Structure formats: structure tokens, C-alpha cells
């Protein structure tokens, strides 16, 4: 009998169809979420949760964008009276916090959580219940922040919340506490996602997918996950120190009692700098994947690409001091820090040159995802070059905390994060939904976005050089900054229109878009395109066996598959770390409501922690029930049970 990877009866000879249909029904019974709202709430499927994750993150992107729009409207002309300093300070704090903590990192982990199991040929993530818990904690964190904002308790000390401004003496009210707890929510979600990804990538790759054959996106997800694991605890602990200074009178950052305001900055930027690469590295994975598909050529210099990713991840931890050049760091250190910061340009350069070589050697096809990749090149290079400039201490002291930095970071994050992300949306949308986004609207989307980004942010370089500091709610007419600011605001309107076009495109496609088929691009190389669009709940009817780096390009007529996994319960195939040899079968748990309830108790704890330290005790007591119920689980028929003695 032929064992297909997809469970599409059309794809097999007529005589095999009933058997395939029966297999599909059986797997669907075992792996699907279950009916109705109950099934929806209990879901632990990485695809259901991944989609929710992506959509939630995108909603936060829109909210953060709206905040930016109000900021731009206020700054459109000098001495504008649209909003006052109080709301302005809240808005830019919310914008930064939303974009960094609720959008950029979550959307990258969300895309990875959806795509990685499909790309490596597995049926789910390693710990599906934990994944559900992580998503709900993240959602609750975002809801908490926005509820506070709408109750006028939004944080107002900046996304970096420097002490002592955010400390108990100057950060009055509960605003900074809200910020500190939001951080904790999202850090927990991030660390959980990191552990999911590391374990899944190491232990659940399809047989034959050795490390040396892993898709570059999977590599980048792996490097991102390691960076999250080592970077996020810093800001989580840092924000807890801050919360304790405010709540129970500790003195971590209180200079008068031997604490240190700079300790906050060191701990924050030890996280804050890797954070940029946490966003940037998965985007590099998108770029490699999409370039390979749209040039029909394998990525040039695969080992160099992988080493560059690893080197970037490594170096990303050594650069945090360059956010603190103005704080009187030892003069001795300047050239060291500059050299270390400039060095990161080398692995980035290696990747750029390899991509250009790939495009040169391939046959580019100008579909919307590829256009966004070209946009990524143009925009990101500007951000990268200004990044090398501000590695220089003397120059950084001129432009630090000015609009030059605003321009630089948006070129980097929009160029290095959002352009590839839009490319990825267009590229994988057919896989998520089974329908293709309109190319015509996609081109409009891209063109306006490209123009808008440059129009908004390029003038800001000049504004910064001409002395405009960041985070000012207004400026005097005599400063001469008015016309460039107006230009930037017009650019922001352009971006806004472009995003509206994207939303229209999505809405129209969902209503009646062109059906995609399994592999709409015709030249995709990775395993997620080997199954149907959208994928069935069990991902693959039979797990694939991989024989090269680009499994779909070298696929024989009847691709080799894995047989023998049980179909009457949820079972994953666990393979070895290095060469992905089949090692054992793992019974993965069924859907359950407990992660949601556990997340709720976590949420209650963190919110209550804004008001009383006893919340830890109360929350801990509340959490015991859901956690025990989560882990206990009753065996299903067919599960082995141990009585006394040996198995």
C-alpha cells in the first residue's frame, strides 16, 4: 500500500482511496480539537494556538500603530495642542511596550510555534499543554496592560522605565507597577515558547533531518529560542526588583541606601540588546526560506549562514553597553565596546552577500513576498549602516536619545522585522487558511508601505542631527523642526493606508479568496508544503522521511515515510538530537481546560501583586489545584498502567 504524507484521497490511486479516507477519519478523531466552544477553549493544537497567537500579536501591532499615529499627529506641527504631556508620555510608553513585548517577540515566536512542527515533520510541539498556558499568560498580560491604559493607569516612564524616574520616589501611582507586571507576563510566555521550540527542534525532527539538513528558518528559530532563554530572565528579574522597590521597600536601585540606578540599566540592556536580535533572527529565517522559493535555488553557503546566525546570537549578548554610552562608562572601554558593536556587522554581511549570490544564481519571481524581501534589503541596510555609525562613542553622544536613534531603530525593526514578517504573512497565508491573498492588493500594500516607511523615518535622521531629542511631546516653532516632522506625519498616514489595504486584502481573501492547494507557490522546498492547506489536525498522515536539505525538491514519486505510529491515540515520534534517528514513541497528552485555568490563576496573582506582596501566597494556593489536575491526567484505554513491581 502507498503511504501518503497528506491524507488527500485525490492524491492517491482510486483503489487506495477508501483506506486513506479511513486513516484520515481515524487520525482526525484522535487529533482534532473537539467540537464547540469547549473544544476551542481546551485546544492544545499548535496550529490553533499558533493562529490565535499570530492574530493577537497582530491586534497589538494595530494598537501600537494607532498609538504611533496619535504621536505623529501631535508632532505634526510645533506647539500642537492635540494631547498634553501626560497622555503623550503614556502613549509612547505604550507604543514601545506594545511593539517590543506584545508584538515583535510574540509574533516571531508565534510564527515559529505554528511553522516549526510542520517544517520538521512532526505532529505537534513537545509540550502542547504548556504551549496553551504560555499563550493564555501572554494574552492576559496584554489585556491587563490595555485595561489599565483605558482606566488611565497606563505606564508613563518609557518602555525602558529608567530608575529613579520609575522608582517609588518619582513614579507615583500604580502606573509603573502595571508595566513591571506586564513584563513578567510576557517574559513567562516567551520563556515557555523558547523551551517548546528548543525541545521540539532537537527531538522531533523527521527521520533523516540531521542538523545539517535543517531548514534555515528552523535554525533561526532555534537560535532565537536560545537567546530568549538566556536574555528574558534578565528583564523579568529586573522588573521584579523594580516592583519590589516600589511595593516592599527594597533598595536595589536606591542610591541613598547603596543601590544603584545604573544596575537597572545594565540588567535591562543585557536583555534589551539581545531582544533586537530575538526579533531580527527569525526574520532572517523568513528571508532565507522565501528567497529559496522565489529564486528556485538553494541558499548559497548554508554552513556560513548557520554559523552567522549562531555568531549573531552569541555577539548579541556582548553589546549591551552601547545603549549606555552617555552614562559615563569608563573612558577606557569605549574602543572595546565600539569594536564589539561593529563586529556584528560581519555575520550580518555574510548573510546579505550569500542572499545576493543566491538571487544572482537563481531565477527571481516577483510575487508579493519577494517584493517585501527586496524592501527588506533596501530598508535594513540603511538601519544597519546607521547602526555601525552609532557604535562610535563620539558620534553616539551626539545622536543618542534623539530622533536619529528613532530613525535607526525603526529602520532596523521595520526593515529587519516587519518587512520580512509581511513577506512571511503573504507567503504562508495559503498554508494558514487555504486561500491566497490578492497579488494586486499585495503590490499596493508593499508599495505604500515602502514609501511610507521611508517618508516617515528618513527625515528623522535629519531631525536628530539637528538637535531634536526623543520623547518630547512638543517643540517650539523656532527650532526649525516643523516641516520635517510634517513630512514624517504624512509618511505615517501612508503606512496607515497600506496597513488598511492589508486588512482589506485579508478580509476579502477569507471571504472568497482564490483556493490555494497544497503548494501554491510551486517551488517551495520545506515540509509544511507537503501536507494540505490548511494542514489537518494531525499535520501528516504519515511522517515524512527526509533525504536532503530541500526535501520537496528532491522528492521521488513515492516519498519514503514513517509507518507504525499508533493511530488510536496521540503519539509523537522522538528522534535523536544530531542525526534524527527514530528513538522512541511519545504519548502526548489530550486537550484539557487546565492550562487556561492555571493561566487565570497566574494572571490573578500578577495583577494582585501590584497591590500586595501576599498575592504570591494567595496565587500559589489558587494555582495548586489547576497544576495538579493538569499533571495528573487519567490514562486512556490502551495506555499501559503499572501495578506493583516491574512493568
Amino acid at each position, binding site marked *: 500500500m502507498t503511504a501518503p504524507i497528506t491524507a488527500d484521497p485525490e492524491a492517491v490511486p482510486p483503489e487506495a482511496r477508501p483506506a486513506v479516507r479511513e486513516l484520515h477519519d481515524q487520525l482526525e478523531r484522535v487529533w482534532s480539537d473537539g467540537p464547540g466552544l469547549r473544544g476551542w477553549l481546551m485546544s492544545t493544537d499548535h496550529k490553533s494556538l499558533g493562529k490565535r497567537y499570530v492574530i493577537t500579536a497582530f491586534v497589538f501591532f494595530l494598537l501600537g500603530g494607532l498609538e504611533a499615529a496619535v504621536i505623529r499627529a501631535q508632532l505634526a506641527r510645533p506647539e500642537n495642542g492635540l494631547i498634553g504631556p501626560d497622555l503623550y508620555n503614556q502613549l509612547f510608553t505604550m507604543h514601545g511596550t506594545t511593539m517590543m513585548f506584545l508584538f515583535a517577540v510574540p509574533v516571531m515566536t508565534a510564527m515559529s510555534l505554528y511553522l516549526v512542527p510542520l517544517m520538521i515533520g512532526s505532529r505537534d510541539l513537545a509540550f502542547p499543554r504548556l504551549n496553551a498556558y504560555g499563550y493564555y499568560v501572554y494574552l492576559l498580560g496584554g489585556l491587563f496592560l490595555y485595561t489599565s491604559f483605558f482606566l488611565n493607569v497606563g505606564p508613563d516612564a518609557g518602555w525602558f522605565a529608567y530608575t529613579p524616574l520609575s522608582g517609588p520616589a518619582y513614579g507615583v501611582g500604580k502606573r509603573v507597577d502595571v508595566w513591571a507586571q506586564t513584563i513578567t507576563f510576557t517574559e513567562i510566555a516567551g520563556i515557555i515558547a523558547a*523551551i517548546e521550540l528548543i525541545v521540539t527542534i532537537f*527531538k522531533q525532527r523527521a*527521520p533523516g533531518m540531521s542538523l545539517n539538513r535543517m531548514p534555515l528558518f528552523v535554525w533561526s528559530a532555534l537560535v532565537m529560542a536560545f537567546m530568549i532563554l538566556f536574555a528574558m530572565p534578565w528583564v523579568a528579574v529586573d522588573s521584579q526588583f523594580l516592583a519590589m522597590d516600589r511595593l516592599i521597600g527594597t*533598595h536595589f536601585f536606591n542610591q541613598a541606601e*547603596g*543601590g544603584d540606578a545604573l544596575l537597572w540599566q545594565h540588567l535591562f540592556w543585557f536583555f534589551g540588546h539581545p531582544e533586537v536580535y530575538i526579533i531580527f533572527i527569525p526574520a532572517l529565517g523568513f528571508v532565507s526560506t522565501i528567497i529559496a522559493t522565489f529564486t528556485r535555488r538553494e541558499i548559497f553557503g548554508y554552513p556560513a549562514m548557520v554559523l552567522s546566525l549562531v555568531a549573531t546570537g552569541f555577539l548579541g549578548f556582548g553589546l549591551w553597553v552601547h545603549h549606555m554610552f552617555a552614562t559615563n562608562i569608563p573612558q577606557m572601554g569605549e574602543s572595546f565596546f565600539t569594536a564589539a558593536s561593529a563586529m556584528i556587522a560581519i555575520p550580518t554581511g555574510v548573510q546579505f552577500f550569500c542572499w545576493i549570490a543566491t538571487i544572482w544564481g537563481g531565477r527571481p519571481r516577483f510575487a508579493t513576498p519577494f517584493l517585501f524581501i527586496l524592501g527588506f534589503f533596501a530598508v535594513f541596510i540603511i538601519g544597519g549602516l546607521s547602526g555601525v555609525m552609532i557604535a562610535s562613542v563620539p558620534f553616539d553622544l551626539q545622536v543618542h536619545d534623539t530622533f536619529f536613534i528613532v530613525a535607526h531603530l525603526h529602520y532596523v525593526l521595520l526593515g529587519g522585522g516587519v518587512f520580512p514578517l509581511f513577506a512571511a504573512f503573504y507567503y504562508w497565508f495559503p498554508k494558514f487558511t487555504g486561500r491566497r491573498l490578492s497579488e494586486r492588493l499585495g503590490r499596493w500594500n508593499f508599495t505604500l508601505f515602502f514609501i511610507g516607511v521611508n517618508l516617515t523615518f528618513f527625515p528623522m535622521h535629519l531631525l536628530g542631527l539637528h538637535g531634536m531629542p526623543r520623547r518630547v511631546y512638543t517643540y517650539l516653532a523656532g527650532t526649525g523642526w516643523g516641516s520635517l516632522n510634517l513630512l514624517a506625519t504624512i509618511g505615517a498616514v501612508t503606512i496607515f493606508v497600506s496597513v488598511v489595504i492589508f486588512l482589506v486584502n485579508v478580509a476579502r481573501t477569507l471571504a472568497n479568496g482564490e483556493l490555494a492547494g497544497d503548494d501554491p507557490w510551486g517551488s517551495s522546498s520545506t515540509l509544511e508544503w507537503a501536507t494540505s492547506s490548511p494542514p489537518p489536525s494531525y499535520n501528516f498522515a504519515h511522517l515524512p522521511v527526509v533525504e536532503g536539505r530541500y526535501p520537496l525538491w528532491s522528492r521521488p514519486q513515492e516519498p519514503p515515510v514513517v509507518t507504525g505510529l499508533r493511530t488510536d491515540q496521540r503519539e509523537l515520534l522522538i528522534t535523536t538530537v544530531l542525526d534524527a534517528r527514530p528513538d522512541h514513541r511519545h504519548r502526548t497528552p489530550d486537550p484539557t481546560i487546565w492550562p487556561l485555568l492555571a493561566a487565570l490563576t497566574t494572571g490573578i496573582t500578577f495583577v494582585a501583586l501590584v497591590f500586595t506582596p501576599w498575592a504570591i501566597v494567595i496565587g500559589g494556593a489558587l494555582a495548586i489545584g489547576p497544576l495538579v489536575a493538569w499533571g495528573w491526567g487519567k490514562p486512556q484505554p490502551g495506555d499501559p498502567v503499572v501495578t506493583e513491581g516491574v512493568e
Partner: protein
Amino acid sequence: MSERESVRVAGEPGSIDVSGLPSTTFGHRTITWWGTIGFMAAEGMTLIICAVAYLYVQRNFQVWPPRETPLPSLTAATIQVLLMAVSVPVMMWTSRAARRFDLGGVRVGMLTSTGFALAFCVVRWFELHALHTRWDSNAYGSTAWAVVFAHATLLIAQFFESAALSALLLVGPVEPKHFSDVDDSCLYWYFMTGAWLVLYLLVFISPRV
């Protein structure tokens, strides 16, 4: 070796049949082991950060601990270290029992570990008093408390995990995977006790050197 040989070649060239592979394994072959390592990495980072804060604020003090603050007492903390040293062989024995699927053994082992974890928590209470400072006295007190308290959360978590696993092993139904859970719990135990040894040297011994 024998399990791996049971990966058979199925009908088509290159296809493999995995029905003969085992469903319960131990150690780094399992994903829960890797998950435990992941959480250990995140928690280890947390402890490192507290230690970094402790070392960093020293720059603001002429003497350490600050004037009028006595050195932390050694009795409780040293008892803790010794207690942990005694517990490790017990957990190694439990780990071996788990790998033999010895239900009686792991029951004894996990009940003992619950007792140990409870004892750690009790001694931790005295250790906090032995610091002779409060979290709100000054930055020395804040950071020393942060280090000791951050590690206390590991102890409390381990106590609940040990208690829950013991209850599960006693009440049942016991599945083979629970033996693997016991094994992972032992791994976490080594991490928890090893981390305390380093932090003990930092908070209780280093001010004396």
C-alpha cells in the same frame, strides 16, 4: 541498541516502521528531560542575575557587609548544605529505582524527597534570619535576600512537585511515564542543591574572605 534495530524497513524504499520502538525511556532521550533542562537554564539565569546584583551593589559600599550589619551566621546555612549533601545519594538511588520500574523504590524515594524538601524549606526560614539584615534595610539586605529568596522558590516548587508525585505514585493509576518523571525530578534536585552550594559560598562565605 536493540530498540533501534527494531526500526524496520517497510514497503517503499527508505520508508521505516517505528511500531517496534519503545514508548518509555529515560534521561536525555526523552523530551521531558530536555524540558527540565530548559527550565533549569531559565531558573539558573535568574539565580545568576540575583548574584550579579549582589556583586554589583558592592561597589557602593566601603565595607561589606555594611557597617553595623553583622556577618551572616553560618549555622543554619551550613546545616542546609549538609542536609542537601545527604539528600543527593538518596535521589541517585531513587533515580536508579525509577529506571528499574521499581514502584516500591520510587514510592520510598519520593516520600523521602518530600520530607527533605520540607526540611529545606524550614531550614531556609532560619537562613533568612541568619542574614541579620532585612530586605528593606539597604541594598546589601535587598540583594542578599534576593539571592536566598530566589533559591527558596526552587525549594518550594520542588516540595510541591515531590508531594504531588508521591501522592500520584501512592494513589495511582501509575503509568510507565511517571517513572521517567521521577528520574527528571532527580535531575532537577541535583541542579537545585548544586546551585545552593554556589550561592552559599557567595552569600555566607564570600563576605568572610
